[in-house]
């Protein structure tokens, strides 16, 4: 089983099952993980599913696309590890992935 861990801004951690082929954003919503709003429903058209990928995972997860970079302009406190979780597809390689949600979305 593939698992993703979400750590919120206060440090609370939640590890949930993720379906291969779904996105990290969908994984969060399905498991009712707070801190991810996904206002646009996963169209890469807002910036309310912003996460920080933990350092150990940034290389495997990869860099944002051009369109995602454009959307990240609308997020706050953007860091080099910032990604929009609707644009990260869960694969078996990502089993154990750890992401942190920002203090505020949007």
């Amino acid at each position, binding site marked *: 089983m593939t698992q993703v861990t979400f750590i919120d801004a206060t440090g609370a951690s939640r590890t949930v099952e993720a379906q291969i082929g779904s996105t990290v954003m969908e994984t969060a919503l399905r498991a009712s993980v707070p801190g991810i709003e996904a*206002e*646009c429903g996963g*169209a890469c*058209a*807002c*910036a309310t599913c912003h996460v920080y990928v933990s350092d150990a995972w940034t290389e495997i997860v990869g860099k944002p696309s051009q369109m995602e*970079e*454009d959307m*990240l*302009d*609308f997020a*706050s*406190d*953007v860091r080099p590890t910032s990604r929009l979780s609707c644009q990260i597809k869960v694969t078996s390689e990502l089993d154990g992935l750890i992401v942190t949600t920002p*203090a*505020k979305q*949007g």
Partner: protein
Amino acid sequence: MSETTTTDVAIIGAGPAGLFAVFELGLLDIKAHLIDILPKIGGQCAELYPEKPIYDIPGFPEISGHGLVENLAKQVQPFHPTFHLNEMVESLEVLGTPEHPKFRVGTDAGTSIEAKAVIIAAGGGSFQPKRPPIPRIEGYEGASVFYAVRKIEQFRGKRVVIVGGGDSALDWVLNLHPVAERITLIHRRDAFRAAPHSVNAMRALVAEGKMDFILGQVMGLKGEGSQLAVASIRKEDGTHVEHECDTLLPFFGLTMKLGPIADWGLNLHENLIPTDTEKFETNIPGIFAIGDIITYPGKLKLILSGFHEGALAAQKIHRYVYPEKKLLFQYTTSSTSLQRKLGVN
């Protein structure tokens, strides 16, 4: 007092649901005015995902948001709806009785429309500038933080900080540069979404020493009362600078807010409007609601649901607009009278 326009139905929101409602009303000889806060029709399809393919519009295996809006505009064309774009509906007054409803709709641009029925097709609410989550920014809004420029003169002699990398940010850099004391653009990366010629013009001003560009993000604001004095900036290299300024203009895109709809006496459930599923009427007779803004048991936020809801609402609205006429159900494939209205016969 501005002049009042009289029509049959005022539709709030010119997204796909509102547009298709014009068609269904038009087939029943009911005229409509549409009001939308965006400068263009199409709602979320036009603003959020114009180029994205949509796969669940019946009869279209794949169509872009823009393509769908274009088709809907063509479909309603025979009915000549009146559009009031760039306007937000602020007030909705009930003038009539439940049996003979009448309403007055007022916008922030001073437009006043009297109608026998109202359809709220406002989707996720009205698109409004997004407030960036900078601590205590609310305290400066309206005095030294602005999300839109109404009067350029207001910025004469000011040290203006503009944040963002899109067309709004770059356009105001260039337009306010001649009047401001000093313009500083802050953006998190050295790549811009704005039109290349605006970016080039900005870079030329920076090269000539006529304005500043800082790669970074605004993390905090300092000032006295509502008067801003300093923007705390985290630069790209991680260092912090305190930047003195009088005015901040953040351009972080748009977000959807329910807005004034909450003040019209409508029942609301978690920011959605409950309706029945027969006529899609709200708790106020004559006010209908369709599309993403409504809720009922089993509601799906799909464009196709909004189309269905508009068609059913039109049937009941016919009774308000033409109380003496009996409504005869007809098909566009066979009815010569409908085809005449569509201009195809």
